[in-house]
């Protein structure tokens, strides 16, 4: 297992021949509150070579749990949310899969990461052996409402994972505009 810093990448398939199924796990802690709490939602966006989502159906999250091609699937066991990727099934036109975590924009408040601590993304094999982990730096993203945790991307015939840790202050509307999706 290795820990990544923002911007760093790890070769997944090049270093692990035969690796085709990945588990992308997300975790965080929310400072407890008696009132409404921030609710984080992982979202996978299957992008083309221009960084745009192939379509609105190429999003995977808790209410759209499988991509149209079956390559990316959401899984929620309540304690930990994860997105599974079958690299062998990812269509050739998908150049990268971006993993975003947003704070649900409920109108009753707490729409940013100010109460979120210890957030991370980890990439593991199907049998849950951790390959890489990225602990998202806290502090600088407290006023953001969406964070790009990382991305899986093609590199020649291989797949790599890059840690991102970039925030949006424009919420899901900013994400929708950047990736060309309707939200």
């Amino acid at each position, binding site marked *: 297992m*290795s820990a*990544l810093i923002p911007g760093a*990448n*790890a*070769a*997944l*398939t*090049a*270093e*692990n*021949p*035969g*690796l085709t199924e990945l*588990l992308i796990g997300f975790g965080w802690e929310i400072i407890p*509150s*008696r*009132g*409404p*709490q921030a*609710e984080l939602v992982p979202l996978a966006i299957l992008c083309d070579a221009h960084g745009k989502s192939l379509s*609105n159906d190429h999003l995977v*999250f*808790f*209410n*759209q*749990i*499988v*991509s*149209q*091609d*079956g*390559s*990316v*699937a*959401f899984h929620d066991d309540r304690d930990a949310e994860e997105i*599974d990727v*079958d*690299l*062998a*099934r*990812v269509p*050739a036109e998908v150049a990268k899969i971006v993993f975003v975590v947003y704070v*649900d*924009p*409920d*109108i*009753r408040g707490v729409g940013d990461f100010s109460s979120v601590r210890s957030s991370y993304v980890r990439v593991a*094999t*199907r*049998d*849950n*052996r951790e*390959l*890489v982990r990225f602990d998202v730096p806290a502090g600088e993203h407290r006023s953001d409402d969406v964070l790009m945790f990382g991305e899986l991307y093609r590199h020649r*015939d291989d*797949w*790599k994972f890059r840690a991102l840790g970039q925030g949006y202050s424009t919420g*899901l509307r900013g994400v929708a505009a950047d990736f060309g999706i*309707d*939200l």
Partner: protein
Amino acid sequence: MALNTSPVRSDVGFLRRRVKPAPTPEPATPAVTEDEPSATRPPTAGLSLAPARTAPRPATPTPPSASGLSLSPGPATPAATAAVRPESRPFPAPTIDDVRELGETDPVLRLNARESAVGSLIVSGAATAVWEDADRVTGSITAGGETAGTPVLTRGNRPLLGFDEADAIVTLRHVRELGRALLIPRGAHPLGVQIFDGSTVTTAPGDDSRMFVLYILRIDNLLELRAEPVDRTASDATILAQFGFTLTPYVSTRETRSR
């Protein structure tokens, strides 16, 4: 064998609309080929799958089937689910962009998976909100704060359906916990609905004898909004009974005192 000469039952809609199962397509062939690690590759995080394997985790997660039925012989993998997805979709319905007013002319619209799950569904003009969650726990609340039945609180400390000032709010982050809901207006004003992207729709105002209530039904991952006419003079209890809502008795549970 006797020939069945009875006329076609055009009154039985579900038989005419039945979708025949389509053959499951072949799974995609792997696009990634294995090759030997190259010594010229740049140094990376140093990963290896060679060591001993831990206990295998369960097979690829099985997403819930939209209709609860599957004709696939094997376990439902994501790919299999994706393959049956077109057949399991509900019948076409207008979108929120197609309808300005829910009423006699356009009684129903359906939100897509994203509209059904992001942020809040805000209903203005409601006097009473009734919910039934996926476990059939049922309750109601009025705009004045009077509650009946059993409340449903989500993990984010927000009610699944409740009032925020004068507006009724459905917590869409937990849309999968919702079974159905009913919003009842009072007075001359119709109901207004707004979703995250700013799209809105209203219900028809009705007339002296009838008003339109808003019936929200979750079909798998999609919310369907319906305007249903009811007698304007009917009490909330009568309307709830008409829609088959039975409020769940609320049992308050408390921690046992330590001695």
